[in-house]
């Protein structure tokens, strides 16, 4: 039997993540207020991180514009909502279709750029889309849009919708990573020139990765909008939502299936706790954590769980900084 564990990352970590996902189904039963919202945000960040990880972790193209797709997704669902279609599934479907189209149309020129140039282009893109949305009156301009929500007794539907989106992103990443698509992405990441002579069309597969990444972020946005009840350009294109998915993927382990979830759970959880106890300086801890991870755990936490050489690499990186 030929093992495919390499491209999906640590298998024990993946199993642990799947168990945790199932456990998270019980959250609304435990607490239907603050805790439910905290975990809904964790699931949202997980979905965003899964999207980023597919292009950034698997195909190796670091995007600073993941929030653009999240924002487009929120507006897709908000537009339907304010026109009387409050079905979350419809919002998600529209967000996926629109984002995939946007990713294909914009990706064909932008994904011809390599490395840093691509990163800067995506950053510019997300800022441009935010400004574009702020100037369209039909989308509420800078004032934003108020959405119709379900009554309090049914508020858990937003939680389960977000859970379904995150679960689909996890499953989607696992399926993609094991497929021929996953190997095309990794080949592009590892050496684009070598990938080309083996028959991999770089632009085509980068655009596919970006379209899936956009669909994932958009689906999360489509649930976030009605759950939040109100969206405006500043909130929908919040810069934190651009940075968090990258940091979460890094912390959990880029280019792995378990990584983004582990990262989202830890970072969003830690952030929540820090915010409660250190209102003013919680971002300091956050920043320090990022620095420590990059220094000592460049392969992410998942590398420590059942990946060959994980602990050895960690000890070696600790040793490298000994004075």
């Amino acid at each position, binding site marked *: 039997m030929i093992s495919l564990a390499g491209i999906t990352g640590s298998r024990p970590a993946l199993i642990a993540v799947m168990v945790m996902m199932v456990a998270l189904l019980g959250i609304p039963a435990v607490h239907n207020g603050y805790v439910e919202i905290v975990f809904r945000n964790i699931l949202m960040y997980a979905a965003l991180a899964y999207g980023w990880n597919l292009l950034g972790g698997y195909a190796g193209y670091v995007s600073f514009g993941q929030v653009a797709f999240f924002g487009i997704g929120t507006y897709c669902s908000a537009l339907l909502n304010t026109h009387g279609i409050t079905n979350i599934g419809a919002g998600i479907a529209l967000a996926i279709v629109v984002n995939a189209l946007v990713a294909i149309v914009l990706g064909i020129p932008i994904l011809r750029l390599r490395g840093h140039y691509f990163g800067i282009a995506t950053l510019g893109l997300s800022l441009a889309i935010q400004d574009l949305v702020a100037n369209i009156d039909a989308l509420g301009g800078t004032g934003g849009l108020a959405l119709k929500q379900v009554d309090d007794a049914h508020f858990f539907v937003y939680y389960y919708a977000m859970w379904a989106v995150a679960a689909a992103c996890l499953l989607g990443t696992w399926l993609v990573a094991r497929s021929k698509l996953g190997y095309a992405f990794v*080949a592009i990441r590892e050496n684009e*020139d070598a990938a080309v*002579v083996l028959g991999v069309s770089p632009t085509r597969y980068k655009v596919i990765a970006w379209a899936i990444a956009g669909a994932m972020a958009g689906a999360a946005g489509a649930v976030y909008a009605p759950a939040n009840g109100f969206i405006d350009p500043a909130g929908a294109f919040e810069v934190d939502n651009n940075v968090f998915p990258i940091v979460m993927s890094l912390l959990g382990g880029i280019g792995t299936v378990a990584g983004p979830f582990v990262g989202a759970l830890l970072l969003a959880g830690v952030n929540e706790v820090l915010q409660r106890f250190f209102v003013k300086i919680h971002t300091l801890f956050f920043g320090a954590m990022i620095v420590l991870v990059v220094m000592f755990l460049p392969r992410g936490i998942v590398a420590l769980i059942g990946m060959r050489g994980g602990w050895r690499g960690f000890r070696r990186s600790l040793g490298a900084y000994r004075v």
Partner: protein
Amino acid sequence: MSAFLSIEGVGMRFGGLQALSDVSFTVEKGAVVGLIGPNGSGKTTLMNVISGVLKPTSGRVMFANRAIGSVPTYQVCKLGIGRTFQIVKPFTGLTVRENVAVGAMYGRTGNGRTTRAAFERAQELCEVVHLAHVADRPASDLTIPDRKRLEVAKALALDPDVLLLDEVMAGLNASEVDAALDLLRSLTARGVTLIVVEHLMKAIMSVSTTIVVLAEGKKIAEGAPHEVVSSHAVVEAYLGSRFAARQAQLAEMKREAEEALRVEPHGDRP
């Protein structure tokens, strides 16, 4: 009848540097063409043009009735041309088998091949190039000779009709070179046409059916190995004009001496 693979007046200019000028030759099916020349003579540039990585600034390369330069680079392997890189380019984050499997998935015969079938094909090729024992190791663990073998296996995964090998023997020891030569012969036996760039003269002379010599971007000689090594132009390109002139002079003196000896009567013969 048009040739199997023809290089027609290929020129390649990088800014002010004319890396190749008006290079033409044809390659017969099943041939082993050795491409030699001093450092900087344009061998790798020509390999890049034939594999479609570079579009020539003049002339063209014709294969299977298509001009290679008009086909997107990623589709050249689908026409049946595979290549290795002189500076090896393994996918270090993947295992050896996975590296080869990428070629089996996206190469010429990749369409409709499942990942599992691609892995099986990759395993076969790992055995062909003697990498089966490290097939599950990350490519980053490989030694240089093994990385060269991996390059060959990846190119073979494309099921090429023409295989371009760019210095796959550089850095190998004598027994490894012999193993590499055996591999090359087994490929020709399977009907693969080879274009080989190599600095090891002994190796390339023993395996090639034709030698093409480049110097300063121009083709200076073409022919069977024994013809090419005695060519004045080739000696001059490799060893300089003074050496070539001296060698020619020596050859002339030797011939004259032999001539003179021949007319001497052999008194002691019966």
